[in-house]
């Protein structure tokens, strides 16, 4: 007796070696592994300080099969700018330059360097693996932490109800920089993600992909549920998959029927403190956002 011959919907080659120290069920490691499949061997990777950098390169070992550099937390986009121009000086513009940076290293401390890189038009694929808080240092809030999420610095108590500010809309900010290719993605939709990375790679100039990466310890769910949580984020409209090509917006995935956000929230410890009213409020915010996106779709 034997199983079916496998059909592989995504490239087979692995450019992130096993043996790395990411948590069991890590959404961010999955994101990097998938993106590398699209980027291919002819790539130089720059990574900012964060979970991925720490877990993949404990000297003298590295999980990377491609050339890789880490310099600091806030400057991956600047380092990538230097790499890209050096390749130009060496007449090796065939090589792809890619950045992997967490939400902290992108929307907070790395924002200025990214803005500079985007404005200068460097030919770099910038991938933000967003796990919605500073997971590397133990779940402190970032500008990408969603409303009402409890973190160690936005705990839910009598006065505070978790994060009290909206999530910074980084993809839109990148669109406003005139970045020619901007997309959102989620690790639960690998083919969509890979297609977007391939487009980003082909883009002449900067490309920005913001990938939602569920985090078992940080969000509070079982390590086996990473993909399911990602699917729920997309199916409830808490996370929307779209791309903006030369300013033109397009949804790349539309749930057949949007599930109530409660299904997503109830599954995670960081939202356990929410009241019915608060869940309703989040539902209203998601509905409003969805309407706005529908409007953008119609305008196209």
């Amino acid at each position, binding site marked *: *007796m*034997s*199983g*079916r*011959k*496998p*059909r*592989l*919907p*995504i490239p*087979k080659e*692995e450019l*992130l*070696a*096993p*043996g*790395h*120290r*990411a948590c*069991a*069920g*890590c*959404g961010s*490691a*999955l994101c990097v*592994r*998938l993106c590398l499949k699209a980027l291919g061997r002819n790539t130089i990777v720059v990574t900012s300080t964060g979970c991925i950098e720490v877990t*993949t*390169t*404990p*000297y*003298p*070992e*590295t*999980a*990377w*099969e*491609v050339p890789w550099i880490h310099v600091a937390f806030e400057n991956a986009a600047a380092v990538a700018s230097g790499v890209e121009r050096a390749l130009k000086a060496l007449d090796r513009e065939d090589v792809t330059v890619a950045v992997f940076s967490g939400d902290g290293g992108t929307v907070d401390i790395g924002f200025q360097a990214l803005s500079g890189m985007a404005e200068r038009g460097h030919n770099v694929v910038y991938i933000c693996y967003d796990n919605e808080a500073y997971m590397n240092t133990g779940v402190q809030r970032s500008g990408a932490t969603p409303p009402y999420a409890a973190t160690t610095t936005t705990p839910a108590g009598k006065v505070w109800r978790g994060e009290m500010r909206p999530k910074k809309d980084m993809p839109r900010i990148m669109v406003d920089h005139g970045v020619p290719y901007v997309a959102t993605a989620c*690790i639960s939709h*690998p083919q969509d993600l890979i297609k977007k990375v391939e487009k980003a790679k082909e883009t002449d100039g900067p490309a920005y992909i913001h990938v939602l990466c569920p985090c*078992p310890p940080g969000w509070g769910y*079982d*390590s*086996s*549920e*990473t*993909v*399911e949580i990602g699917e729920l984020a997309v199916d409830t409209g808490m996370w929307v998959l779209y791309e903006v090509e030369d300013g033109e917006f397009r949804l790349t995935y539309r749930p057949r029927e949007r599930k109530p956000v409660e299904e997503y929230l109830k599954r995670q410890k960081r939202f356990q403190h929410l009241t019915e009213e608060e869940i309703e409020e989040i539902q209203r915010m998601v509905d409003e956002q969805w309407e706005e996106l529908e409007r953008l779709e119609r305008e196209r």
Partner: protein
Amino acid sequence: MSEMEYTIGAVIKEPGSTRRNKTGRWRVFRPVLDEDKCVGCARCFMFCPDGCVRPAEDAFKIDYEYCKGCGICAKVCPVDAIEMVLEEEME
């Protein structure tokens, strides 16, 4: 530890060398694939954060040297071909 080679600038010249670190030791539950049930959809392959599910001639092979036992593969399998079994029970 005394065997370690210290390169100039801590540059690592051996790509993929984390393979020396057998993360299979982390595992509490072991994913066991029932090849008969497998439909070859490759969802287990796609979603493994550690790249431990490898396509084989027939179905897939799980690399237990590195599998951390997160259970994603079992969860995403549309035909429940992967069962998570407590390691002690495997002995």
